[in-house]
């Protein structure tokens, strides 16, 4: 096995001193997240054997920081963010979001979430879908905010259309707008662009960059794409295969706002390449190189 820049697997990660460069600190909102020795064990259907999905993950995420999590299939990336979102029980350790439990965050409706399966309601129009979080939290929809999001995702003309009539990329944009409509303190993006083609995906990356910069918040993005991770995140976490642990963390020193032009930048290329090498090694492909 040989690869450059062997970052020793850290157990405890300090928040990067300056996660953002250009003026983001001024507008950044969100809450900090702390993970302490978080583990997850699943019981299998036979009721006796168990599977260890996540092992001893500790991490500190600053308020308003954008974290990307990459790793091979089955490394428990989704499980980790679902535990942070309060959708999955935590077997061991502790997750706190500004001192509260994930469940408390959900109860206050301060979490936004977008998944690979966009999960739009087929019977509601685009506008009604984006307004749904207001309805679920018993609030009157803020029409001005919805209009602004519709503008941002470029679907103002499609406000009254049903999701069936939208393309895959358009549906994901609606799903993003829905996740952001309550201005959440924590945003979880679980492979939101996983089902899109490469071209649309690049477009969507830029869109997300734009929408996020409009109101930055603490964000966790699970992705399979290294380019996507590096383009969007302040820090990229690489997870090892099952049981999932954090193998390494890479700060992304690229200035914001980033555009698709950033992906041709030399620093960007080098960063992607070095993470890719490490990623291959983690997957046991190091010798093949």
């Amino acid at each position, binding site marked *: 096995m040989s690869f450059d820049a062997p970052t020793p697997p850290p157990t405890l990660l300090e928040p990067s001193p300056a996660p953002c460069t250009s003026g983001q600190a001024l507008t950044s909102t969100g809450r900090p997240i702390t993970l302490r020795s978080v583990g997850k064990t699943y019981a299998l259907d036979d009721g006796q054997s168990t599977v260890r999905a996540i092992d001893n993950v500790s991490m500190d995420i600053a308020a308003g920081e954008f974290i990307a999590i990459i790793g091979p299939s089955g490394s428990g990336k989704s499980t980790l963010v679902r535990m942070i979102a309060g959708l999955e029980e935590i077997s061991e350790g502790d997750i706190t979001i500004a001192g509260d439990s994930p469940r408390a965050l959900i109860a206050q409706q301060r*979490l936004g*979430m977008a998944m690979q399966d966009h999960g739009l309601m087929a019977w509601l129009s685009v506008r009604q879908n984006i307004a749904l*979080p207001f309805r679920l939290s018993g609030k009157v929809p803020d029409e001005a905010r919805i209009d602004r999001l519709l503008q941002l995702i470029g679907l103002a003309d499609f406000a009254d259309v049903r999701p069936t009539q939208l393309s895959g990329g358009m*549906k994901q944009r609606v799903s993003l707008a829905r996740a952001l409509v*309550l201005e959440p303190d924590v945003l979880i993006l679980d492979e939101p662009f996983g089902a899109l083609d490469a071209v649309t995906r690049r477009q969507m990356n830029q869109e997300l960059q734009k929408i996020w910069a409009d109101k930055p918040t603490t964000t966790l993005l699970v992705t399979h794409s290294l380019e996507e991770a590096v383009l969007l995140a302040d820090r990229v976490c690489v997870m090892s295969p099952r049981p999932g642990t954090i193998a390494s963390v890479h700060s992304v020193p690229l200035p914001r706002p980033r555009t698709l032009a950033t992906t041709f930048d030399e620093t960007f290329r080098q960063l992607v390449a070095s993470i890719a090498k490490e990623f291959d090694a983690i997957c046991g492909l190091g010798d093949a190189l």
Partner: protein
Amino acid sequence: MKTALLQLIKHYWGIALLVFAWQAMVMVSGFNEIVVPSTIMVIQALVAEPLYFLHHSAYTFSAAIGGLMLGIALGLLFASLAWLTPVLDGVITPATLLVRSIPIVAFIPIVIRLAGYGSQTILLVTVMLTFFPCYVFALTGLRSPSKAHQDFFASLGCRPSGLATWRFYWRLALPSAVPNLLTALRLLAPTCVLVALVAEFLMGAQGLGYVMVRARSDLRMDVSWAAAMLATVFSVAFFVAASRLEAHLSKVWRH
């Protein structure tokens, strides 16, 4: 013009064949026209007394559609209760299996004896027939929201428990059940018309089923056949309308 005619033949040759066979039978068999009325005679009978047929058709179809709607409403109500409290499902599901094995149409004479001669009997039989399938369809629908939908609702603190139950039901479970309810409507629409006709046929008071018997004993076969034809046309129209509605909505509902 020619292609339109060709299309018409292509789609309706089956029905055209039936009408043709009927007319051919009248001519070839040499049956008395009083015994086997011709196509024209039946249409003449319809046109001669439109109000008479309208009255009896209205009776039959208000009973059939009313019973169907009542059955669907009750099925949905009980399915919603069972969705809330699974214990109830343990009581209703075995009953569903039991009722499914009973030929309900054969029990119509019993229901007539029990409930009396009147439209309440038709309503009762229709509800008996539609309630259980509707219950099963509705409950499956209420439980059908995808994992992604459930997760999205959960991420906003909306789970089917406690105070959020109503919101979860109203915003997710109930809309998800709509396609299933429409499938039930389509499947049960012709059956309800059949049940109404059979009940009227046996009770002999009002409705198209009654006209079929009554006209026959008056040796007015043309009127009897006209009633039968009318019942068929309405039943088919009802079924087609229900299918169209289902097809249209399921296109909207499923991505």
